[in-house]
């Protein structure tokens, strides 16, 4: 029994039954398949995490985001947030801080943008809903993500990394419109 020493002293020489061997073989091969899927998706898949990231002083990131917002703001949301609409295919900035995502963005469907994300204070979680894309946002690191909205509408950015008492109030927004149009 498993609570007693092995019956055969030289247990490492005992023969393994075929059923057990077959299962080990299947499990091992399945592991290889799952490993290959991740590699395959980096080659053929369209949803991969960007490896582009830079160390950055939060103050510098704040300044860049402010400049970006000033330059491209087209209107205000009903909540008073500026909505920046960058040219299609361009660089887009969004910062996270206690407890907001700033600014709001208006993007065009089918266009590809370089989204620069960073935090000014603590860690935050960028959870784009309902499309359900989730990224971790760190202070001092600028993460550049290339993304292409494929549907129009209003999308929420829920903070899903606990960031203190106002965590549940931290919601941002991205509007996606048809190419060549605006809301």
């Amino acid at each position, binding site marked *: *029994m*498993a*609570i*007693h*020493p*092995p019956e055969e002293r030289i*247990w*490492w020489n*005992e023969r*393994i*039954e075929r059923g*057990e061997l077959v*299962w*080990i073989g*299947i*499990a091992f091969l*399945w*592991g290889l398949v*799952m*490993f290959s*899927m*991740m*590699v395959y*998706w980096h080659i053929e*898949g*369209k*949803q*991969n*995490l*960007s*490896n582009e*990231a830079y160390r950055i002083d939060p103050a510098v990131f704040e300044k860049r985001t402010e400049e970006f917002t000033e330059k491209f703001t087209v209107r205000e949301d009903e909540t008073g947030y500026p909505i920046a609409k960058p040219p299609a295919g361009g660089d887009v900035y969004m910062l996270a801080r206690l407890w907001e995502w700033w600014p709001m963005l208006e993007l065009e469907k089918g266009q590809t943008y370089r989204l620069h994300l960073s935090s000014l204070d*603590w860690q935050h*979680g960028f*959870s784009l*809903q309902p*499309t*359900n*894309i*989730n*990224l*971790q946002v*760190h*202070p001092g*690191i600028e*993460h550049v993500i290339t*993304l*292409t909205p*494929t549907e129009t509408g209003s999308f*929420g950015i*829920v*903070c*899903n*990394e*606990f960031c203190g008492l106002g*965590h*549940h*109030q931290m*919601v941002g*927004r991205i509007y996606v419109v048809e190419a060549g149009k605006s809301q």
Partner: protein
Amino acid sequence: MSIASAETGIIGGIAAKFRTCPATGLKIDLAAEKLIKANAVAAVVFLAIGGLFGLLVALTRWPAVHLLPSEMFYLVLTAHGLDVLLLWIIFFEIAVLYFASAVLLSCRLATPRIAWAAFWLMIIGGLMTNVAVLQGESSVMFTSYVPMKAAPHFYLGLILFAVGALVAVMVFFGTLVVARDERTYEGSVPLVTFGAITAAIIAVFTIASGAIILIPTFLWSVGYISHIDTVMYKLVWWGMGHSSQQINVAAHVAVWYAIIAITIGAKPLSEKVSRTAFFLYILFLQLACAHHLLVEPGLSAEWRVFNTSYALYLAVLGSMIHGMTVPGAIEAAQRKNGFNNGIFEWLRKAPWSNPAFAGMFLSLVMFGFLGGISGVVLGTEQINLILHNTIYVPGHFHATVVAGTTLAFMAITYLLLPLIFQRQVIWPTLAKWQPYLFGIGVAGISLFMMGAGTLGVSRRHWDITFSDAQVTFDYPATAFLMMGLNGIFAIVASLGGILYVLITVGTVFFGKKVDASNIVESLGPMPQKQVSGAVHEYGGAGTWHLPGTYILVTVFFLSFVLYYFVNWKYLSEIWPLS
């Protein structure tokens, strides 16, 4: 010089008092027995406290109930993680380590006094961190990601607890050396002890990681260090945080083997295979801290892919092996017990009314189907994009740590009570139902949290209606339904948990004394061996035939493959990003 009798052994001038277990004939060191009791009792106390906190969390996340105010919610959520994930489980694991060494090897425990020092260090550390959290200045969640800062005694308490646990692990290793020196067993250690050694080796790595990150963080919290890198913190912290879950896996798999050995006389199908599976844990589980860094900036894709898969899923391979050898050992034993008709008589006529067996089997099934499969999916590099930090994550780990580890530990409690506490379980009828009640509750919370997480609901979030937020977002109605069902099943699980605590505490204080006359009945219902001679018909030397197990693992494998690719399909539907 060594003189050993049934009562005392004096070796090298060290005296130890033993009693002989009437059920197993093992010699039990009384000092070890006291320590097992102390650690198990501390574990149950923290389970009771932490479980209550968990119920409050679930009731707050039930949108229609929304019990606690936000500040209190985050405080209670921090305390919940601390008390159940850390204190309940590690205290119980120390009890398991002492049991698997001193008791199973019929050996005296090395240095009981140091073991007591370890126990008190763990108690002091655990209380200190609890105090820090309850004072309200350390609602930083169990993970305490920098640069969010807790009170210094939050970290100090964790450090003291970890040092205590490390000392206890060393006492375990010392006991193995003593057993070998004093030749208290023949050949190799039992498989259960081997599993415990696996857990202990991983524990050393885990606690070392904890020290590497918590000591500087403590110094940072008191102002001696100015900066802790946020990504580095997560990497090393999860070297502790995730690896400690692998201690749990190794420990509860060892517990599964122990329970089936005691309740139905199951033998490992192959010592070599089961031990190799444990060994794979030692080699590869530590890479899993990458699971928590799959959507972080600044780590390369190669690093993520290699580490998140435990090299080539070699630790998953270990678990899949146990997933076959444990039910296989049950089937083989039951067929030898005479339940040899058809494909599933062995399973139908298993001792389902014995809470130790029932809890163990539910733990096995739920750990595999719910916890194991969801864990691999969650830890797939790209799929993590649609699941990271959603409530899918707690859904997954409630299936592993609660349905898997906690339920396995509850199950073996029903054997430890008569064997170690020498008390007969009070309320056997309620005890019979306890694992089912708890198991159904936990299955529900795991499934519904995973469901809500798939719909994007955030974990660690006070209010998914965003009632006091300036900007809002509407989650789908199904997500609200799932969170409500989660609350209902949390109540069911809590009833099972309360029942467990009442039965355990009641038995320790009021249970009938167990001795040679009633020890066997005290272990709970056992399969009645069939006398039809099936023993001779089935299972000649080294041969067995396990059709039931093959069907079970086939169902498991097909579910795994299907669910895995369904999630790739979900992923392929989100916005392209690179």
